[in-house]
């Protein structure tokens, strides 16, 4: 599978990464190389093999329905570039 510059630009946009136009061809080429490498896996016959989702034979850890966290608004907001009256303040976003 080959990635063209338009696709590379779209992926960059979806990931909110700013990429200059002249860098796109190189990026697209790297993408294609990565996908090409991964595509080798398609050569393996996995018919009837259940997909492996984890290397550890573990069950998903669960929690009881008890409130054990929160009440730390200051800590939550500590890294915010702008916080007012207990809220994160961000540039206006309205549909």
């Amino acid at each position, binding site marked *: 599978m080959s990635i063209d510059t338009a696709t590379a630009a779209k992926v960059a946009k979806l990931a909110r990464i700013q990429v200059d136009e002249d860098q796109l061809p190189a990026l697209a080429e790297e993408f294609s190389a990565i996908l090409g490498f991964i595509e080798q896996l398609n050569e393996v016959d996995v018919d009837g093999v259940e997909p492996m*989702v984890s290397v550890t034979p573990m069950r998903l*850890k669960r929690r009881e329905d008890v409130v054990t*966290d929160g009440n730390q608004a200051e800590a*939550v907001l500590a890294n915010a570039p702008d916080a007012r009256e207990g809220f994160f303040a*961000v*540039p*206006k976003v309205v*549909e």
Partner: protein
Amino acid sequence: MLDLTFDTPKPKTIQGAKQAWELVIGMEVHAQVATQAKLFSGASTQFGAEPNSNVAFVDAGMPGMLPVINEECVAQAVRTGLGLKAEIHLKSAFDRKNYFYPDLPQGYQISQLYHPIVGEGEVLVEMGDGTARVVRIERIHLEQDAGKSIHDMDPHMSFVDLNRTGVALMEIVSRPDIRGPEEAAAYITKLRQIMWYLGTCDGNMQNGNLRADVNVSICSPGAYEKYRETGDFGHLGTRCEIKNMNSMRFIQQAIEVEARRQIAIVEDGGEVVQETRLYDPDKGETRSMRSKEEAHDYRYFPCPDLLPLEIEQGWVDDIAGALPELPDEKKSRFMADLGLSDYDASVLTAEPESAAFFEQVADGTDGKMAANWVINDLFGRLKKDDKSLADSPVTPAQIAGIITLIKKGDISGKIAKDVFEIVYTEGGDPAQIVEERGMKQVTDTGAIEAAVDQIIADNPAQVEKAKVNPKLAGWFVGQVMKATGGKANPKAVNEIVAKKLAD
């Protein structure tokens, strides 16, 4: 087994300039799961807390924080699935839905795209006129809610509160089986009712605990039936999705408005474009959410932070065994065993609290009388005072007491209304009130006979007339009732008056 036989309601049709069109509607209902803590963190789900106070570092998307699933959220989803007669998947998995928005600090929503916990089910949606439609459920999956943005606190900034971030939602996805605005409202009402009974979602639409995305398309009469026969969506029109509505009224308006917009386009020779739209109730129109379209590529992939969710059949069976009686079953039992009308049974089962109240009244008294007293007298009185059942000053035992007094013949139906008013305003035990205030019905035939004799003696002219016209006996009965302050047993009075006049 339920014996529910219904006619199918007619689909809503809208007459365009060229032809009549039918509506086809599918819904994605987002129901907040009723739990103490969030889906993947130990922060509280409490509504209305101080901004950002119910936030764990997991919810805030802090680096290195890992989600740990709340077992009760899983149980609630299973309960809801069982309540919708749906298939429960013992193995499900979580995926990441990637998009950027200020109220989504992780940069993705953890959801279940590929392997939802609940599969196909169904909901019986009654329309109140003897018709009902079975709406097929495609799936229910668990996912995280996003935070809340507030846009009106500052002219240039939006304020973000993450208290709702990470709260568990069930997304209940229907098939396109809903055929009109009223059916859409009835469908949500029914889902909410079932979840009230199950205790899995409080259904508070105002707080946003129940929201719906509505898919609307139009088709020519007959096309929908072809879709149902073949399963081929090609028979249906292109759909538009109206996002995020939390008012029954607006949902109905939006469906109608959107259908008319599509009809105008199609009749004009145009094509409906599949897109996400927003309903503006002030303008009474839907409009395209272009920003959402651009970001529509969510690049889903399995969430690497979470192993698949595996549950045991035994655990599901335990939940199934502890399920409460559901609205459909309760309603048909009220009708079959207690002799209630369809209407009364519907009113009483609308909310689990009213059904429980009614059952306490009916227990040991009489189903029909209990239904009349609860619906007409209690609900009517509460409505007059703008009170809810939870604020009722009258207990089920007090109403049962009044009914018992009527059945024993201690009070007439008319006096019973007075007793009810006393109980409602002053409280107290009905039997004691009747005793202490001398409201007991006179069933002593001697006393009634004396009253009848007196009236006959005082009104010889009327007696003569009554001998010619037996209908005038009613006048004597009225006089006796008046003389005894309404306390005489009407049946006894009728009999004695008839006998005396015949003498």
